[in-house]
Each structure stands twice: as structure tokens, then as C-alpha cells.
């Protein structure tokens, strides 16, 4: 039994499948169009694998012009479109529906321009997050947002979800690191928003489209900000006997005027799972662990660490373990960044993504444990403590529908808890289908209606990624443009 509903496919579109595929085939060469059931299977889900729907067809355009042509065609035919990056969404943001085509950006994966003097790279949106950093690292530069899926995930997907990562405490999230984008609207219109200059002209449309979950248009190119890497970076492990001490330590560090480049939290179950996988040297005799990373020259890092260690001692730190080599440092991050994968080896899990004010961390952790106990489940907590972005990994048995239903119910309780504590449903994964029906818990009807009205300014007919973000009922506010069908009938 699955909990999340999908809209009923439009029978008219399903009946016209052959015609629609012919229409698409006229726009693209055969290698850019996937129609066989076997090959479509690869696109039926994303990283929220318990839900899947086979799309009508999959299109993999090679250029902005091809994306425009395909969207223009779908618009004229009333065909829904689900945009897709690498399909790593944990929220079901890229899960298709039977009456929609998928437009994937995987063939648009070139780095077009690197400009170190202006600290900018122009890329096609299908490039992977990590490939940009890999490309510029020899010159000492990097692209800052670093989601755990950065080896696979694309800039298009990062823009769709406003992705964060472990290091955004210092460097910000995607919206703070994109200078410009080429956006194709549902009707095929191509817009250039921003560019290589430091700020964009007119209304801040970049701020609107970044994090819009593929509902406003498809981004085909982006100008991303490059940053010069620090002289050195050093992650240090701090083990505590209680989550309370670890949480208080995080707040005290920030209050002392120190913003480390990253502050990551893991509880005992997460430490055990990640250590068994990565052999990173994590302490196994503590209840909570912080990975705190400092940057700079050797003397600067030593000075910062001295301050941090003093604060940690005041909060009863039990173990302090400094990485003594680049390899040890890499292992520490490997353990953290593989937390989801490592958890997947011991159990099926769903990963929540609520954010809470950091002063509420300890309270929310304690309540999370109570909620999980109530449902008779297990949880591992691994999250970005510096910015309060929680990631409880709720473990369950995917072969047991009752277990999945319990896990989803527990997850929903935890997300409501995050909102009630002054936070939000999702810090970096997005709403997708997963949290769609919880939106009313965070937003009033007026708030949601206003968001939907702005959305409708881009896609009045709700053709782009329509089953995501907003609750399925009451989708179109009364004064929004009349949907296509009713207009045709009128």
C-alpha cells in the first residue's frame, strides 16, 4: 500500500500516444527519442524508488532549440512534461506520470566556457555538479554547492531543487551561486535571465526559478559562480556523550563569531552505519558526533580549531580527532557523504529533510526519537547542524507495505514537528510528490494560492511537472487563466 496519490492519467492523451510520438519524432533524431517500454523503464522513478510511473515517452534533446521545439509541440498538443536531470531526487521530483513525456537534459552536458578572471563558468545544464569542480580544481577553483549526490546530479536538477550540501553554511546554496540561466518556457519561448555580470537586471527571476522544481520552465544553460578554494581544509571529529551537548556546542560556536565551512551531525546509529561502510575512524563509543571543517592556511586552521576545541570542551566533548593527512580528511567526508548509501545497505529507508532553527535541534531530535518509537521503527540521524537541516533516515522494510506506510506516517509526523518548531518541510531536497500534501501545514491557503498564481504566470495550463509541490486538489485559483480544455469547450 502506497500513500502518495498520482493524478488519473488523461485518457485522451494516452489514446493519442502514437500521434504524439510521431510528432516528437519529427522534431528530433531517433537517438534522442525513447519509446520502447524496456528503455522507458529507466526513467520511471528517481531516488524515491518506492513510487514509479512509466512515462509516455522520453526525449533527450541536444540543444536549447530542441528543448524549445519539443516544449512548443507539447504545449500545442496539451501534453504534460516532466523535466529530469539525473533522477537523483529523494522527493520524487522527477517521477513521471503515464500521460506525460520526460524531457531529460543528459545529452546537454558540455562545459561551454571557463572564465577564471570573472570567476564564472558557462555550462549546459546536463553537466554534473562535480564535473564543474573537477574541471576547475587544477587551477584551484571550485563550484560551491555540494549535495551528497554531486557525482551524478546535474546543474539542471540542482537549479530545480535549489540544492545545498555540507558546505553551504559558508558558501550558500544553489541560488547564491548561479549568475544566469537560459530558461525555456512551456510554450517554447527562450529567455536569457542574468548572465556573466554579478547581478541580473529587472525582477529577480533567477531567485524565482531556482527551487521551482521544474514547474516554471526548463533550464538549458547556466552561468555558475566559481570560487577560489582555501589554502587548506581540515575536518575534525568531535564525539559527545549526548545530542544535547553536541547541539549546544554548535550554537556556542556560531555565537562566538566562528562560522566553520561545515558542521555535520551524526547520531550513534548513523556513526555505526557509516563507519562500517567507510572505515573513516569515527568514534564508536559516543552518542553524537560533529564533523567540523575549518579552512585556511595551516596556522589559521590551527587557531580556529583551538577556539572551537575550547568551546567543545566547555560542552563536555569526549573525543576530538583531527585528521592528520589529506587521506584521513577524505575518509571523514567519504563516511558522511555515503551516509545514505551506507544506510541503504542495512535497510530500506526514507530520508526526511526538514529544517529547524538551530536552537530547536535538541528538542526536535528528542521528539523525533519518540515519534519513531511510537511507530516501532528505527532511525539514524545525519544532518547539517550549522543550518539546522535535519536528515532523519527512517528505516523500514520495503517488501512489507504496512512497514512502508508506518515509515511514511512517521516521516510526516517528523516534518510537521519541524514546521511547528519554526522550521520548514524541506531544506534542500524539495517538495516533489513526497511532501506535497503537507504543504498546507506550512502555508495558509492564501500563501499557496499566491504561489500557484505566480506559477501560472509561467505555465497557465499546468503542463510542467504538474503533479508536484502543490496539493492535487484545489490546484488553480479561481482567477487564474482558464485551463485549455475548458477554454476549448467554451
Amino acid at each position, binding site marked *: 500500500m502506497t500513500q502518495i496519490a498520482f493524478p488519473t492519467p488523461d485518457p485522451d492523451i494516452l489514446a493519442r500516444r502514437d500521434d504524439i510520438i510521431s510528432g516528437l519524432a519529427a522534431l528530433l533524431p531517433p537517438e534522442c527519442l525513447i519509446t520502447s517500454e524496456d528503455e522507458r523503464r529507466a526513467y520511471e522513478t528517481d531516488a524515491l524508488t518506492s513510487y514509479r510511473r512509466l512515462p509516455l515517452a522520453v526525449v533527450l534533446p541536444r540543444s536549447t532549440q530542441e528543448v524549445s521545439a519539443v516544449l512548443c509541440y507539447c504545449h500545442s498538443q496539451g501534453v504534460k512534461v516532466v523535466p529530469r536531470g539525473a533522477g537523483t531526487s529523494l522527493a520524487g521530483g522527477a517521477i513521471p506520470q503515464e500521460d506525460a513525456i520526460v524531457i531529460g537534459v543528459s545529452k546537454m552536458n558540455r562545459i561551454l566556457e571557463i572564465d577564471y578572471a570573472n570567476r564564472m563558468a558557462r555550462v549546459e545544464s546536463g553537466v554534473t555538479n562535480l564535473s564543474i569542480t573537477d574541471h576547475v580544481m587544477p587551477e584551484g577553483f571550485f563550484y560551491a554547492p555540494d549535495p551528497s549526490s554531486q557525482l551524478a546530479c546535474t546543474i539542471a536538477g540542482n537549479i530545480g531543487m535549489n540544492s545545498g550540501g555540507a558546505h*553551504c553554511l559558508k558558501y550558500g546554496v544553489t541560488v*547564491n551561486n548561479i549568475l544566469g540561466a537560459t530558461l525555456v518556457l512551456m510554450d517554447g519561448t527562450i529567455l536569457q535571465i542574468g548572465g556573466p*555580470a554579478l547581478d541580473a537586471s*529587472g525582477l529577480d527571476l533567477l531567485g524565482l526559478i531556482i527551487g521551482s522544481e521544474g514547474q516554471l520552465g526548463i533550464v538549458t544553460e547556466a552561468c555558475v559562480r566559481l570560487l577560489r578554494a582555501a589554502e587548506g581544509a581540515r575536518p575534525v571529529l568531535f564525539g559527545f556523550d549526548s545530542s544535547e551537548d553536541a547541539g549546544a556546542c554548535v550554537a556556542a560556536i556560531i555565537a562566538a563569531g566562528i562560522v566553520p565551512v561545515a558542521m555535520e551531525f551524526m547520531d550513534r546509529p548513523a556513526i555505526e552505519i557509516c563507519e562500517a561502510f567507510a572505515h573513516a575512524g569515527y568514534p564508536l563509543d559516543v552518542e553524537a558526533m560533529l564533523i567540523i571543517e575549518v579552512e585556511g592556511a595551516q596556522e589559521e586552521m590551527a587557531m580556529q580549531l583551538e577556539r572551537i576545541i575550547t568551546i567543545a570542551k566547555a560542552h563536555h566533548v569526549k573525543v576530538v580527532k583531527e585528521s592528520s593527512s589529506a587521506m584521513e580528511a577524505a575518509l571523514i567526508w567519504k563516511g558522511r557523504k555515503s551516509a545514505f548509501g551506507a544506510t541503504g545497505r542495512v535497510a530500506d529507508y526514507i530520508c526526511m529533510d526538514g529544517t529547524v532553527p538551530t*536552537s530547536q535541534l535538541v528538542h526536535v531530535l528528542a521528539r523525533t526519537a519518540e515519534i519513531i518509537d511510537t511507530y516501532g521503527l528505527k532511525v539514524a540521524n545525519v544532518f547539517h547542524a550549522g543550518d539546522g537541516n535535519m536528515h532523519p533516515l527512517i528505516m523500514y522494510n520495503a517488501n512489507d507495505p504496512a512497514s512502508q506506510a508506518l515509515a511514511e506516517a512517521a516521516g510526516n509526523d517528523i516534518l510537521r514537528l519541524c514546521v511547528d518548531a519554526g522550521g520548514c518541510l524541506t531544506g534542500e531536497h524539495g517538495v516533489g510528490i513526497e511532501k506535497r500534501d503537507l504543504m498546507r501545514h506550512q502555508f495558509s491557503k492564501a500563501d499557496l494560492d499566491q504561489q500557484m498564481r505566480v506559477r501560472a504566470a509561467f505555465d497557465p495550463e499546468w503542463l510542467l511537472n504538474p503533479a508536484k509541490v502543490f496539493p492535487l486538489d484545489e490546484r488553480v485559483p479561481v482567477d487564474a487563466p482558464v485551463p485549455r480544455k475548458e477554454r476549448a469547450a467554451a
Partner: protein
Amino acid sequence: MSAFLPKDEAEASDYVKSCYASGQSLTLMGNGTRQHLGRPIVTAHTLTTSAMSGITLYEPSELVIRAKAGTPVSEIEKVIAAKGQMLPFEAMDLRHVYGTQGEPTVGGLTATGLSGPRRIQQGGVRDHLIGVSFINGRGELIKSGGRVMKNVTGLDLVKISCGAHGTLGLLAELTFKLRPKPETEATLLINGLSDARGIEALCLAMGTPYEVSASAHLPSGSTRDPAQTLIRIENFASSVTYRVEQLAHALKAFGVWEILNAQDSAQLWHKIANVTLLPSSSALWRLSVPPTKAAACVAQIKAHMSIDYHYDWSGGLIWVSCATDNAAASMHIRAAVTAAQGHAILIRAPDQLRATHPVFEPQSEAMMKLNASIKASLDPKGLFNPGRMYAGL
């Protein structure tokens, strides 16, 4: 024309609802220190947020502050400075530019979205605005974002509220993320570089690992000789000492760098931030271009007209001052920024000039169509600051 001064969101909301019913337009403002920014507009009424004032949340350990739109920026800066924190984007104060009086408000700061020198490193107003509540054109109070730094829940109406010049909604309450105030600062200075050479030095400095927090070039001209190239470092004292040395060494090909101490550095950057170094009686333009194209952009303008100017943001922000009666200036400046892949805002000019020439960068037809749809989705009757940014918006 009547002036309305609501004491809270509820009053403001009722007032907007009455305007929605009657279709009468509104000029929105805070304390009016930057009311001359944008196209001149005529509306039925004026709504001032001065009385909607006060800090409603401040959590130093979370680096977050929330305040009503009419709260003076100086009040916020004072309260957070007491805890060793700051607004990271160096809020721009436009009183010198416009010769206005009164206290700039946080609502006006957000509506105009203009950031100071530290924007090159830390990001601008929009990068630190994490939550907003505003009254839309129907009179409804709308919330977006929140008080946490990471939040991707729903369509983000926070960023677009910044820099919209009051055309999309009446800002009621703003939440910002803060940064610890650096322990100290110092500025490297070198005299006599050409524009192109000065900007080359700035770009190199920005590409070092020393976290330059501001970089400007002040060319020689009517008020200054020789030119000054400036690079600021902010950090703990020991880091500032180390980084300044490293930078001077890395940039030794440009000559010998002097060091300005913390006090002199702070004073100088304050002047650069608020554009007090350029003549105050002239027209003032703000150009945004990729840094390496800045010197050529200026050269192209200088080929046609006489200007005073300086560069901030590693060259990416150019302040240009020129005679107010130079009607061709707009054409030359727009052509130069277009060639440089940038854009320009006419910050200060007589009403007549701002009424007849674009103030903000002209947009493509497709973009204007989308802007109009967005405006209509938030303010369906076009009540708020109609025409402030673009005719018809």
C-alpha cells in the same frame, strides 16, 4: 491624493483591500530616503510603512533577525553590532546620493536591493533575505521563506520581493541571515594603475585563497590623482596580517602595496559604498558588467562624453556620473553595457529625464510579457508603484 500610515499589517491590509475595490493606485514607501529611485510615478494615494517598525525576532546564535518593514536599518545594525554581528551585504545608504533626510528603512533597503562592496564576496541583499511577509494586490498577507537558512519549501517568493521596487507587494516583515562581524580589517592600496591594469590586479586578488571582501579601483580624474586600486581583507587579526602579506606578495608585479589600517580602511569603504566620492549634482548611473569587460565599457562611454566614475566589485560595478543635460548619455551608456553583456540603472537624474528615458535596463518583448504576467499574479489591478520600473508594470 491622501497619505496613509498604517500601524500594522492588519491596517495596511484593510487599506490595500479598499484600494483593490476602488482600483486606486498607491505609492509605497518607507521613510522616503530613496524615493527618487525609479521612474517618476503618479498615484491616487501614498502608503508609508514608517509606523510598522520594530525588531520582532533576533537569535544571535542562529545568525538571524526579523524586523517590520519600517524598522530603521541603523536600529538593526546597532542591535546586531552589540552581539558582534552584521548585515553581510553592506547596506547601501542613498541619502548622500539623493540629498534626502530621515532614516533608511529595512523595507526600502529590500525593495531596492542595492548592496555595497562586500557583495563581491558575501552576496547581496537578496542572498541574505530568507523570509518575507508582504501584502499582495488583493490585500492578502502572504508569507514566504522563513527564519531558517535552508528552505526550499514551495515556490520562493522571497528573492523576487527584493529589488522589485515595491511593484509586486507591500513588504511587511523581513528576515535576514547575518554574519559574525570580522575582528578587524585592512586594505591594500596601490597608486597610479590604469583602469585595465587596476582591474587586472583586482581580478587576480579575487582569485586568491585570501577571501578578499572588497575590491575597487578609483581612477584619476577631476577629484583624485593618482588613481587608487584597493583590496580589503577582513578576518581575525592574525589572519588579516598573514593574508595582507600574502596578497602584497602575490600582486608584487603591480608595484609596492601600502596598507591602510582598520580605521582608514573602514572610512574609505564607507565612502565607496555610498558613492560619496563622485559629484552630487550630476546624473548618476550604476553599471553592472563582468569585471574584465569594465575598462573597455568605460572607454567606450568616454569616447562620447565626459564622465566621473569609479569601479567596485572587482570592476563589475561601475558608478558613472555625468552632466544631467546630456540627453545622449542614455544611448551611449546602454550601448556600452550591452556590448559588455551587462546592464545599467539610471540612479539619479531630474524627473523629466527619468520619465523620458528608461531607468532600468530595457527587457526583451518576451521578458516584458512574462514580467507583466508575474505582476498580474501578485497585483492584478496594478495598484502598487505602477510604472516604477517599467512603463505598464
